[in-house]
């Protein structure tokens, strides 16, 4: 069971502050626990539930970071309770505190306000760990959130391989280890909701399907077995529900416990979409397939090929391009993408932009992906 005997460390007291909620109330409840640094946050919550307060509600199952049940906010950011442990949490808090202190009191300069108490030495206090429910989803009780929209949004991207249009072989589809490796990152998603909980775009735009769904979407685009790439790219780049709704706040990448890096996957889809458009403009229809070929050949967009076929086309200076070398090419390519928003951009600004686009659409002016990206670039 959770904890038997002792693990490898010393026993210490930690104060857990849990943001609780019932159908009628919300409050902060404090629990004092004797724990070891190696105990996971889930071990601690079990200890609360089993020994102090059976009414505390949270989800759990595998206690081994694979089922995705135990997403919650631990000291302010969404994470898995069975992945984070007490020792690491306290170390993290300490480093945040010291950054705060040094920011407030730059080295070698006296405190700006000598009356203001500096943060007390951690060793004098019982350390605190704060636990709250995930965001962007309604709270049902305590740490339990209603994940219906999360599942619905996953469903919205058609999260299954389609081979309808293909001749299905008798044996397995062949997929080289390199093709397969391109699916590692997205394939690792455990659908825990941590990214969704922190997503800036979800906060302001109820239509946005969310990072988990778009990471899965890229898995579908990059999987050599799927035959709906073109349709998928169109679908994923509609309005602000798909990839163009992402504000590039980076939170999904930073909280994801499985290194899925949803924002990067969104970037990959955008690359594929823009590439598709460029080709469609210059050599209509016939060459729309080039992109799909590119994806299918290698499961992703080979940057060199991409550069040659897309960027090379607009600059018509192949030699110059080649002389840029791989790094220069990459920068050029990146430059085409909407980099306009950094985490610091206010939520309000994002919302108004999205609304502006939606207004345009509502007035019957379809907003093309490129216009969309322009809007974002300007933003």
């Amino acid at each position: 069971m959770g904890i038997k005997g002792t693990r490898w460390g010393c026993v210490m007291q930690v104060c857990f502050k849990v943001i609780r909620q019932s159908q009628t109330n919300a409050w902060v409840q404090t629990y004092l626990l004797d724990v070891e640094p190696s105990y996971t946050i889930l071990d601690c919550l079990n200890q609360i539930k089993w020994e102090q307060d059976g009414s505390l509600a949270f989800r759990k199952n595998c206690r081994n970071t694979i089922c995705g049940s135990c997403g919650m906010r631990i000291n302010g950011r969404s994470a898995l309770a069975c992945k984070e442990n007490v020792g690491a949490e306290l170390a993290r808090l300490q480093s945040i505190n010291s950054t705060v202190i040094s920011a407030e009191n730059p080295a070698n300069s006296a405190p700006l306000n000598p009356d203001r108490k500096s943060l007390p030495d951690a060793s004098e206090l019982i350390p605190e760990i704060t636990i709250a429910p995930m965001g962007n989803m309604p709270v049902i009780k305590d740490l339990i959130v209603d994940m219906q929209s999360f599942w619905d949004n996953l469903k919205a991207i058609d999260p299954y391989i389609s081979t309808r249009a293909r001749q299905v072989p008798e044996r397995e589809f062949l997929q080289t280890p390199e093709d397969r490796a391109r699916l590692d990152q997205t394939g690792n998603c455990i659908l825990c909701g941590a990214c969704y909980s922190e997503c800036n775009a979800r906060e302001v735009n109820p239509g946005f399907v969310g990072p988990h769904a778009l990471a899965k979407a890229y898995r579908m685009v990059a999987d050599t077995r799927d035959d709906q790439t073109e349709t998928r790219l169109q679908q994923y780049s509609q309005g602000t529900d798909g990839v163009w709704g992402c504000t590039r706040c980076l939170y999904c990448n930073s909280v994801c416990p499985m290194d899925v890096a949803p924002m990067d996957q969104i970037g990959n889809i955008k690359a594929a979409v823009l590439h598709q458009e460029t080709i469609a403009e210059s050599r209509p229809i016939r060459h729309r397939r080039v992109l799909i070929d590119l994806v299918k050949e290698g499961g992703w967009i080979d940057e060199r090929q991409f550069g040659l076929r897309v960027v090379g086309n607009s600059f018509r200076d192949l030699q110059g391009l080649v002389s840029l070398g791989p790094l220069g090419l990459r920068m050029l390519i990146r430059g085409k993408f909407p980099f306009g928003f950094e985490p610091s951009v206010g939520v309000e600004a994002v919302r108004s932009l999205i609304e502006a686009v939606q207004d345009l659409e509502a007035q019957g002016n379809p907003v093309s992906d490129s216009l969309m990206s322009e809007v974002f670039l300007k933003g």
Partner: protein
Amino acid sequence: MIDHDVIIVGGGLAGSRAALEIVRTDPTLSVAVVAKTHPIRSHSVAAQGGIAAALKNVDPADSWEAHAFDTVKGSDYLADQDAVEILTREAADVVIDLEHMGVLFSRLPDGRIAQRAFGGHAHNRTCYAADKTGHAILHELICNLMRYGVKIYDEWYVMRLILEEGQAKGLVMYHILDGQIQVVRAKAVMFATGGYGRVFNTTSNDYASTGDGLSIAALAGLPLEDMEFVQFHPTGLYPVGVLISEAVRGEGAYLINSAGDRFMATYAPSRMELAPRDITSRAIGRELRAGRGIHSDGTAGGPFVYLDLRHMGREKIMSRIPFCWEEAHRLLGIDAVTQPMPVRPTIHYSMGGIPVNTAGQVRGSSDSLVDGLYAAGETACVSVHGANRLGSNSLLECVVYGRRTGATITQAIPTRKLPNVDESHYITEAQQQLQSLLDQPGHYRINQVRQAFQDAMTEFCGVFRNASLMETGLAQLQGFQAQYSQIYLDDKGKHWNTEIIEALELRSLMIVGQMILESALQRQESRGAHCREDYPQRDDTNFLQHTLAYYSAAGIDISYHPVTITMFEPQERKY
């Protein structure tokens, strides 16, 4: 009352594969899956090592017959060989079907599915997705359930089976969200509720593996088969119990004792670390007893042995078994590239379960079937694992028999009508059961009773068993059952009250525990995972047969059911 053509309890590999089979064959049927977790959180998601099938991608000498032989030998000849034949013959087919569905298998350089070595398998036939095979398969299956519009009741707890006049008519289920109780009526009811690892104090299983389906069947008067066969996995990470996959040994890790010896040389010289699980677990048990275990400070005489990966090198560890490295690092702060990992046996798998035939129909007794009731997966006993399961045969069983059971159900539905059910009686009964849990004054916390019960099961019915130990265990169990009526709940509401669920699960655990102990006490021989110190030999004359245990408030009745032997005559089992 809710009506469906088919209601499936459990959304792991077995339940979701069955549901998929039904809707893919006949999309007009109304199929529902109910699970107390979200199906994607089911225990199947945690399976690491892989799924066996004689694809011959790495080993052309492999065949379904060889796979069948390994399985039967691994089972200590208690498996039903007709069931094993189906399992191994259909293996390649179901794995290819999973691949076509999109499952992310690891690949060989030429693009075919990769296969690795696994304990008890004489050929390299385990297909895998790095060390997240269960995750790779389950996620694809559940996304496909979304695609085909299977109705999912997630976070509903099934409390009982409605079985009248020998016919399964539906279920009573409880909505964890708001305490709502519903009766579901269906033409076919299927159980795929997984295992019961939580009966013991150290297990690789998730929190939901509480044997609910088994206890629901037992309470309905149905027999449970071969419950004495409980698998210990040799390498549970000490002290937490989480699994270090057998794939780690498949990739070349060593087991060493306090003297630094690879002690498997004494117990299974030909297979070494890749001997079957029962043998390896007992070997570790014997090393610990002989004082060659290790303490946390590295001295001899302690409670664990080492699993040593150091000779494998960082690159291989990180590319083939990254999750194993991550587990040891996260839970113990150990870098397996430079440090050995502490391990000891952990309860892992239940070979026994609800008896079914090879079509997935539940047996009401040795010679009868229950109308309208089906089961598959770990909760069922068909029996392909007999007295000991080989690694990577369980996911296979879930998929092969999930599919078969789905096919049986699809065929049966057209000739079946929705049964008549008087729901009010069932609802009142369920309400009373819950209300009395909420109202009882009591003075034990759920966890106190559960922990004491789990400790007792582990002590009195562990790797090594004997009559006096088990009799003590049964006597103690009565005490815990008496304490059950004196537990109290802090949470008196019906809004996401997980204490109610834990209390109901504790009841399941105790019923299953009693079935295990009684079945084990009656089997006076040693076979596979069942090791009796007072009866150290296998006894084919008296016990080459399956146990059927029937539960009643008055006690447990044991009878036996013949083993089907079609291909391989029982021999002594040596590795």
